[in-house]
């Protein structure tokens, strides 16, 4: 199969995969015990969204470091694309988490440490874009945004791992437990759908990210053409 055909097919495959995940989440996976009604099914969407938000943050860091080393404007475009998607997926994870909190604990927002963590992640993304907006010069904007992205990433481990462990949390235990051990106790069909959803959301991120970077590449080529 040649490359252009693969490029056309992959989004359709991704679309089918996500439809299968949605169907699997509602009709194939059984209800989890210990949760109100069918609320636990949100795990198939909420956790992958939170995972993609953190993945986007990591991609943003790598692209920022690459920019600081090589000064390639495309790396800055990659960092901005990852941050944009990270912001969208953080919002989605916050909204789905709030819906779950409303059903389980009766309130959309409970100031749970994990809710605070995702809110701070949102603030970091918002601050990153506020900084980008404040600098008109492209090269300076790229450098300062990259520096801020690296600095923000440093606080991430404290946000995700330290703060939620200082305070008692309502949040169901994470996949990686408080002592660092890997916890993965799900019914087999739930696990299948959950893993399929993780793969699907990661694929969705990769697809959107690639589109954004390609668009940036076209814009750069056009502006170079205009200058010449």
């Amino acid at each position, binding site marked *: 199969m040649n490359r252009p055909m693969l490029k056309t097919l992959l989004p359709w495959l991704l679309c089918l995969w996500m439809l299968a995940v949605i169907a699997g989440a509602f009709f194939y996976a059984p209800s989890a015990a210990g949760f109100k009604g069918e609320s636990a099914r949100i795990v198939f969407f909420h956790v992958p969204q939170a995972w993609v938000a953190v993945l986007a943050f990591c991609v943003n860091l790598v692209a920022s470091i690459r920019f600081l080393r090589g000064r390639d404007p495309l790396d800055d475009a990659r960092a901005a694309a990852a941050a944009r998607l990270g912001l969208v997926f953080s919002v989605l994870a916050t909204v789905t988490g709030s819906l779950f909190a409303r059903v389980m604990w009766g309130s959309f927002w409970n100031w749970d440490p994990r809710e605070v963590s995702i809110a701070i992640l949102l603030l970091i993304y918002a601050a990153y874009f506020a900084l980008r907006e404040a600098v008109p010069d492209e090269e300076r904007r790229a450098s*300062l945004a990259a520096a801020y992205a690296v600095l923000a990433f440093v606080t991430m481990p404290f946000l995700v791992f330290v703060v939620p462990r200082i305070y008692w949390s309502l949040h169901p235990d994470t996949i990686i437990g408080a002592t660092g051990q890997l916890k993965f106790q799900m019914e087999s069909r739930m696990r299948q759908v959950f893993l399929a959803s993780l793969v699907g959301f990661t694929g969705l991120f990769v697809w959107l990210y690639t589109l954004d970077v390609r668009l940036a590449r076209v814009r750069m080529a056009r502006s170079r053409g205009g200058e010449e």
Partner: protein
Amino acid sequence: MRGSTLLSECLAVLGKEFTAELRSRVALNAIGLFAVTTLVVVAYQIGPYKIAEQDRPHVLAALLWIILFFAATSGLSRVFVKEEDSHTAKTLRLAARPAAVFAGKYLFNLILLVALDAVIVPLYCALMGYAVSGVAGLVLVLASGAVALAATTTIVAAIIARASGSSTLFAILTMPLVLPLLVILIQGTRAAAGSGEIGVVLPALRGIVSLAGVTLITSVYLFPVVWHE
């Protein structure tokens, strides 16, 4: 400064900061007046008797750090913004190595924060009736908090000075970076106030010191990029 060492350059930058600040007193006035005004408003409106006994440890520790943090953000960005405003940044770039500039400005901000703590914390305890059982523990939390807070505010000040220099942008960029630190600081302050045992503040101290360490190391690596941009 040919032949000068990093330390001598750093001390020269620190000395310059003190001379410039004592001449204009912009940062001192901003931080001092903001802190005192906020403290007076909080003490007047809430005071020692308007908080329920069971809420006092939580509310008093949080209020103390809100006053200290917002007072700090009102003046700490000046160290770099004033260089851009007065067009002296280029001369400073030629006169000292980036590491010396960062270290000198960081030490200046740290000294300002320690002075702020030394004035505001006793006043706060007196006005709010905040009885602290573990004074040594509180001093350790305040000192390590100043080290960590100065690290973040100094590098963010360098970034915003090269951006637009606006104090609003400084608050927007600083807030998400220091929120985990503030959470740990409030936790440590509450622990110190509640018990005379030094051991109760150790978990918070570990978090603060490690956060300060990684922020400082990252800032030292990032500063040349920001400074020479």
